[in-house]
């Protein structure tokens, strides 16, 4: 029965390869249908709960080598040395990967790349550089490219963005490991260290970079939204004061000299760079900006500062 099942899966894989040549969508559908061929948990990693957790007679331990090494460490110094060696190994492999990626030039049709990417994401991950170029192509779409004018240019720009994302993500995760190395064996356990190593290694993949870009882009948008302030509602008197501040800063106000504006800026706590000390227009622009951003209390303070510096004009109608 098991043999028949494996044969069916092998036949399916051959059929899948054939269909990949014919069309991405059909291949993807078949891939979903063949999902039962692996022992996946709802499309995730295969279960480990039916395997022994320790070494069995005549067989190697079921854990990865790095995990075994970390489990065997008996001192902080030993654990940290293992981690340092692993970091160096991961970094060396990453640098090699990036060099290859940057050399890679692809002129294949983007649509084909994306169809194959869908299959790749669904489970046929490979270490081949060609597959990685497909992720780069998907990144082009994720960053908003809709019309491919110059595919090579897009590819190169996308690779630069993805490498930057991988670098940023790796730097953050490396910090976790370095912080953990300051902890004792009880606080930063072997499984913690192994999980961090895995995350660090995974951060050097294009798929991870795409996820990182999406997450940071969303954070940036949320932050940008929170930067947009409501318009401050003013009473007629406050409106008049704000407008009077603005008019007093107009260039046709003879009282608006660099010296008087510097005095007002000093009262308001505005820092004027050395290069602008004698530039009345530049100082006025800074105070105008402050006036635009001010709440009702701020408008009154600016009004008082301009008045005491002798800049305020008579705004009575």
């Amino acid at each position, binding site marked *: 029965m098991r043999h028949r099942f494996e044969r069916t899966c092998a036949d399916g894989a051959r059929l899948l390869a054939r269909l990949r040549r014919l069309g991405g969508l059909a291949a993807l559908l078949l891939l979903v249908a063949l999902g039962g061929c692996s022992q996946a948990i709802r499309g995730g990693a295969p279960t480990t709960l039916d395997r022994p957790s320790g070494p069995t007679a005549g067989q190697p331990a079921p854990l990865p080598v790095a995990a075994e090494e970390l489990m065997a460490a008996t001192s902080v110094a030993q654990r940290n040395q293992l981690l340092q060696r692993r970091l160096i190994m991961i970094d060396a492999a990453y640098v090699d990967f990036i060099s290859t990626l940057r050399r890679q030039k692809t002129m294949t049709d983007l649509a084909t790349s994306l169809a194959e990417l869908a299959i790749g994401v669904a489970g046929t991950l490979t270490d081949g550089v060609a597959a990685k170029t497909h992720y780069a192509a998907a990144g082009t779409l994720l960053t908003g490219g809709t019309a491919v004018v110059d595919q090579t240019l897009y590819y190169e720009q996308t690779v630069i963005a993805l490498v930057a994302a991988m670098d940023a993500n790796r730097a953050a995760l490396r910090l976790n490991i370095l912080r953990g190395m300051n902890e004792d064996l009880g606080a930063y356990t072997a499984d913690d260290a192994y999980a961090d190593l895995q995350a660090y290694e995974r951060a050097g993949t294009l798929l991870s970079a795409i996820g990182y870009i999406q997450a940071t882009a969303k954070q940036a948008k*949320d932050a940008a*939204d*929170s930067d*947009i302030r409501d*318009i*401050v509602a003013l009473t007629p008197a406050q409106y008049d004061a704000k407008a009077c501040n603005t008019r007093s*800063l107009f260039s046709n106000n003879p009282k608006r000299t660099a010296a008087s504006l510097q005095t007002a800026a000093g009262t308001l706590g505005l820092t004027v760079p050395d290069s602008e000390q004698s530039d009345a227009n530049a100082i006025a622009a800074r105070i105008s900006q402050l006036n*635009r951003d001010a709440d009702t209390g701020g408008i009154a303070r600016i009004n008082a500062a301009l008045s005491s510096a002798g800049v305020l004009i008579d705004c009575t109608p």
Partner: protein
Amino acid sequence: MYQRSIPANLSLDDIAGLIADEEAGGSQFADNQIRLFKQSGKPGAMRNVASFEVLDDAIPKRPTLIEKGDPPPAGLALQWTGNLLVKGTSTVVGLYR
């Protein structure tokens, strides 16, 4: 160019007053977009996000907002038309000065 948000539940007159308050700083309303406005990852609400252009030594005349279909104000010129959230409803509006 910079942006300010305008609450979605205001009347046309209130919005015109707010735009005038902002323009007293020496800028002029340029455009409005209705956006899902999020803060600190909380569920967002729709708001008006107005763009303003900084002027050189000028304060624009107070704007008058008219809902599309209403008679235009006499003696004023149409400067902008677009969508605004007025009393919670997306409304096509003309801005006259």
